[in-house]
């Protein structure tokens, strides 16, 4: 019964939505909107080769601040959902599992880990030139940490360090935004106040590059924290008193 209802409803929904989307033919360039402006301003004014990036970090940089917040929020929320108090219990760090990874995976992980960090950094440093960006770069760095976490039962990440990175990187974003209020031409939040540079140069795009680096660090630290929390959960049985 439930199945019939669900399938029926899904059928209806897909029918209507698909018919709506088919009305926008694939590949058709039917609208003239803000995108024309972005395609023009991005290389000319901002000197950013990647228009997606200039949208993400400049035109719609406020969204990206929101996104950074979402990740920060998710990692904090995760912490509050799966908190554990290592230091207060038994004095030992909890072990993730009883099955150790094979020796060669461990050796391989050691080699690949720095490689992924360099790759991630490469991506967020070149965020304004290539399809990547702070999020992708940060995520790749975090997967490097994931590799270490799953390869070693006793690989522990210093949350202290993560905290510092997160805090500094996150506030860099906001403070850069606030600098815009003071130093930039229109005195707007998140407005660029640095020289734009030359198109396709590493040092181009003004604050975009710095923001992406900050975002990269923050995202890397946050996803790493999230993964660590998810993988290292050990119940302490203690519940904060309810109120």
């Amino acid at each position, binding site marked *: 019964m439930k199945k019939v209802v669900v399938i029926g409803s899904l059928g209806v929904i897909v029918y*209507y*939505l698909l018919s*709506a*989307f088919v*009305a*926008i033919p694939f590949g058709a360039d*039917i*609208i*003239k*909107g*803000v*995108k024309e*402006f972005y395609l023009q*301003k991005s290389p000319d004014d901002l000197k950013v080769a990647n228009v997606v990036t200039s949208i993400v970090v*400049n*035109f*719609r*940089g*406020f*969204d990206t*601040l*929101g*996104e950074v*917040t*979402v990740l*920060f*929020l*998710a990692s*904090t*929320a*995760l*912490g*509050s*959902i799966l*908190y554990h*108090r290592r230091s207060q219990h038994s004095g030992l760090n909890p072990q993730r599992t009883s099955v150790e990874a094979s020796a060669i995976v461990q050796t391989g992980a050691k080699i690949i880990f720095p490689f992924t960090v360099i790759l991630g950094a490469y991506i967020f440093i070149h965020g304004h030139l290539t399809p990547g960006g702070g999020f992708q770069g940060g995520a790749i760095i975090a997967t490097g940490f994931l590799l270490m976490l799953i390869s070693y039962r006793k690989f522990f990440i210093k949350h202290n360090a993560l*905290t510092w990175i*997160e*805090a500094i990187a*996150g*506030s860099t974003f*906001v*403070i850069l*935004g*606030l600098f*815009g*209020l003071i130093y*930039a*031409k*229109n005195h*707007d*939040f*998140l*407005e*660029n106040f640095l020289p734009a540079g030359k198109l396709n140069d590493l040092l181009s795009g003004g604050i975009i590059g710095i923001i992406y680096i900050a975002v990269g660090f923050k995202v890397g630290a946050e996803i790493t924290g999230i993964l660590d929390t998810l993988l290292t959960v050990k119940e302490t049985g203690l*519940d*904060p*008193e*309810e*109120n």
Partner: protein
Amino acid sequence: MVITDPVYFIALPLLTAFLLPLFGKIYKPLIGIIPGLVFAFLAYISFDLYLNLVPGKPIIIQMAGWAPPWGINLVFSEFSGLIVTLITFLAFLVWVYSYNFKKVGFDNSKKYFTLLMLMVAGSIGVVLTGDIFNMFVFLEITAIYSYGLTAFYKGRDSAEAAFKYLLLGSLSSVFILLAILLLYKQVGTLNMADIAVKAQSIDPKMKSIIAILFFVGLGIEAEMFPMNGWVPDAYSQAPGPVAASFAGMLAKSGIYALIRVFYTVLEVKGVFDLLLIMGLLTIIFAEFSAMRQKHLRRMLAYSSIGQMGLIMVAFSFNTKAGIFAGLFLMFNHAIIKTLLFLSSGFLTYSTKQKKIRDLDGFGKIMPFTSLMFGLGAFAIVGLPPFSGFWGKLNMLVATADSNLYFVIALILLVAVVEIVYYFKVIGRLYFRQQHKDVEVHNPTWNAILAMSILAIVIIGVGIYPDLITDYLTKATNELFDKAGYIHSVLPNLSLN
């Protein structure tokens, strides 16, 4: 210091949230103190900005140096500014209430305050932004906050509640995104004022599908029947102040989004009739369910849904009287429900089950908290001389104004139901013998302060509603004046 830029409402809490862990490393109590200072400051500047607002001249802030529609903009108007002021005020009170959050330990209070800061930034963002996608981003911030803090306490069924919320919240974001995508492909812009201008040319069928997607997506956030299954669970499982923030701030930003979209962005014929019907169904199912609850918090949660339904009904009239009443109801619901949740936090402190039955005779052993709860109950059911009465009266006048007599009858019928279940609790609190010894958790001084301030507001507005009616009227005019909104955001646009 007068700050004229509403971006601080978002930037400051974000900055604080990012830096809070560092403050904690410097000196642990800063974790609690800094958010308070920030909230106080935000409340101050919001009052300052709002009171100095020139009518018809909302503060429009552009981001990153790009004027709308190219860049994202914030609109601090009589309407959005009112909600922001309400949110900052409540945020400050919630902070005051939970300042002594010692019981949960340092680590958790750090997370708690961080999440609280982010939630305030998120819900203010929803209200201030002039960009539809940006609104989605901020809605997600508030959503994730809720998932995280709903599941804050272990031992309860909090994870279950949070998971349900997450399930529905995810569906909500899918529908909102689909709507935004369709809309973008139709008008090529994401700025709400710009969409409002261009939306007239959208094919009506396409428009109706976009409207439905928004309606369902935002309806979930606004606690609309039949998509509100998450509400009672989340409200009843979250920590007291968090539940208060759900009712006081989150639900407000959800309904704000719904209203903004259908009043300003997308003008769709028929949507308000739909809103009326769904609002009525929301009221009926919620209040009737509330009637049969054995758990205090669940009862309050269902009652909240009912209030949200009432607000939807008010806005569905699409008249100034309706908007005015809706705003009044929003104000009341925010203030009163916050008080109810805050006081219920201490009432149910020592009972694991949080059953209403366990509250017998608490009026004697916890006089202040019970009094606050009683006051809240009196106010929420609309008894004079408390602020709830004026909201209800204006609501009924607006309903009569729209010639919907059967709606009046229904609202009043439901109000009787409301009275029954709230007065059952009051009866137990004050006029029953306490049946067993319970450990008394009297509120801390700061909780007393927070609740007292709310009580004063409730009584103050109840005795002299004109404290706020002027502002509500201004907000009403702003929301009703779509052309004015478009003109302020896009001054160079020639409307023909």
